[in-house]
């Protein structure tokens, strides 16, 4: 209880909306543990329940069933103003009738902190988000990026145990978004506060997070570090949602010691790593950049085929190969030296070829 391993414990939480006869479950039994001081991201497409989960932690919604514990204490049924948790809203929700400094000081004022303490904390927060010279401005005179910083400072000022961020960067243009991603990481590092960040942008999730929970249709499919999520996706949806990936269908011939031999319908036998024993029809997954490309001549490649398309995207080229398995296999290379119509061999390293649990 309250250890660093289980700072926030979400235990079998469900959330249903609508009248009893037409209930819609936004969350169907979510369990997750978030560690103290980590940057935890809820990632998924719109409607996957990530914002609902965030609102349950903030207290804007109450769970239909299940428990939410913070530092060992059940908070799932407390109103928002009794939870040591603050939120950065998607549309910032700055108070239009207050100045920047008044906005930032609002939380401390509601906690009845002495004036001097409020003033010094506000000054520190303004410095943290590099807004010191705009303390007296009204919030409608600020740019989107500045409003974003004020919203962040306002949520951080009461020193919450957890900071919730609901797609806070989605309204910013690309360049500003990249800047704010770096800023957020820096601020999280400096304050040491646990961040729970909601986004639908997989790249954003991979860059910023310590750990990511990938959500779909009200369930968490996988929780893991960005490398785990990227390199060893546990489900087809996770693999597909994050980055580019090839799927190869086949039949398990043998399986043991985390190694599965899979026969493709077209004949070749591939070795893939399997987290758990598998049998029957399975899907294998491999990232384009993990596939080795070689001249067809030597005949030792696991798969071979003819190049159907070359797609150049600046830092590399995607080589589309028809290897007779249905869909084209995409391999990524920085040194193509091949042309459409060439025959090539494809190496699919055992370590990078994984069997997906459906």
């Amino acid at each position, binding site marked *: 209880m309250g250890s660093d391993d289980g700072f926030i414990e979400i235990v079998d939480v469900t959330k249903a909306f609508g009248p009893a006869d037409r209930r819609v479950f936004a969350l169907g039994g979510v369990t997750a543990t978030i560690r103290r001081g980590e940057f935890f991201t809820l990632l998924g497409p719109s409607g996957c329940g990530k914002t609902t989960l965030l609102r349950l932690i903030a207290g804007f919604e109450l769970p239909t069933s299940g428990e939410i514990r913070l530092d060992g204490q059940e908070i799932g049924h407390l*109103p928002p103003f009794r939870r040591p948790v603050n939120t950065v809203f998607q*549309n910032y*929700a700055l108070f239009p009738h207050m100045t920047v400094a008044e906005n930032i000081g609002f939380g401390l004022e509601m906690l009845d902190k002495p004036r001097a303490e409020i003033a010094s904390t506000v000054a520190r927060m303004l410095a943290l988000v590099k807004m010191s010279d705009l303390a007296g401005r009204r919030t409608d005179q600020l740019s989107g990026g500045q409003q974003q910083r004020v919203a962040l400072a306002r949520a951080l000022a009461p020193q919450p145990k957890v900071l919730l961020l609901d797609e806070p960067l989605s309204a910013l243009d690309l360049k500003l978004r990249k800047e704010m991603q770096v800023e957020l990481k820096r601020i999280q590092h400096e304050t040491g506060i646990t961040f729970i960040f909601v986004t639908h942008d997989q790249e954003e999730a991979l860059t910023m997070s310590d750990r990511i929970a990938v959500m779909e249709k009200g369930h968490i499919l996988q929780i893991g570090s960005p490398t785990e999520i990227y390199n060893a996706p546990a489900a087809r949806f996770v693999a597909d949602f994050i980055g580019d990936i090839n799927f190869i269908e086949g039949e398990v011939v043998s399986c043991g010691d985390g190694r599965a031999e899979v026969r493709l319908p077209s004949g070749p036998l591939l070795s893939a790593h399997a987290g758990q024993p598998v049998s029957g029809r399975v899907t294998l997954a491999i990232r384009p950049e993990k596939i080795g490309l070689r001249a067809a001549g030597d005949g030792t490649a696991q798969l071979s085929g003819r190049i159907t398309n070359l797609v150049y995207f600046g830092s590399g080229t995607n080589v589309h190969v028809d290897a007779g398995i249905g869909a084209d296999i995409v391999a990524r290379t920085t040194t193509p030296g091949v042309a459409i119509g060439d025959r090539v061999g494809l190496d699919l390293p055992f370590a990078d070829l994984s069997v997906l649990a459906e």
Partner: protein
Amino acid sequence: MAERKGRPFNLKSQPGFTQIAWACVVFLYAPILVLIAFSFNENRSVVRWTEFSFDWYVSAFQNDGIRNAAIVSLKVATSATLIATTFATMAALATTRTAPFRGQGLAFGIINQPLMVPEIVTAVVTLSFFALVKQVTGLTGIGYLILAHTVFCIPFAYMPIRARLEDMNLTLEQAAADLYATPFRVFRRVTLPLMAPGILAGAMLAFVVSLDDVIITLMISGPGETTLPIYIFGQIRRGITPEINAVSTVLLGVSVLLVSSFFLIGRKKA
């Protein structure tokens, strides 16, 4: 490519547009201008101009009947406005800041009922109802008139307040709650300051509506409860004098002032 003179439809370029527009302005405002002009006329006539003077304003001000009527009007309008605006604020909060509830449409209809029902019906109904209440309780006084005005002022105060609340982002209140504000403090520090322009606008509208009312007041008001419009109405039957013009001009000035501030305040964005 063929050149085409495809100009979008423009109402201003229709034949007769300018003439009709000007005719409307003249028909609307000419009588008012005439009324204002003759309130400054030196002689007793309201049709024949002789010389500029403030005499009628002075005599209106010194006329006890007018003075008393003005005091009654202000008393009734102020009280009705305060009570109606309070109720309208509560109603607006209840219809915008709660989860949709059963009978919400009905509640909305009931609040706005005085706008739909012909005023004469409301007046007759109120008169007979008050007669009954008076008979049972034996209570008399200006309270009845204030109550009647309050009822028809509520929808006028309610509408701008509701509009303001609907424009207001709900996440602002959530943000305040998230920052440790209890529900009461959320209301006092965020909801109320942000809806204040709506409340003020609603109050001014209610005030004007109460100040100008004739039909209901005519039925309800007892002895010594003559409001300004009722006084003017009574005097006109004895012939129009520029004194009435002067009083009307002042009344008009107050209304215009309040209604234009209503628009100015209402325009301030949330």
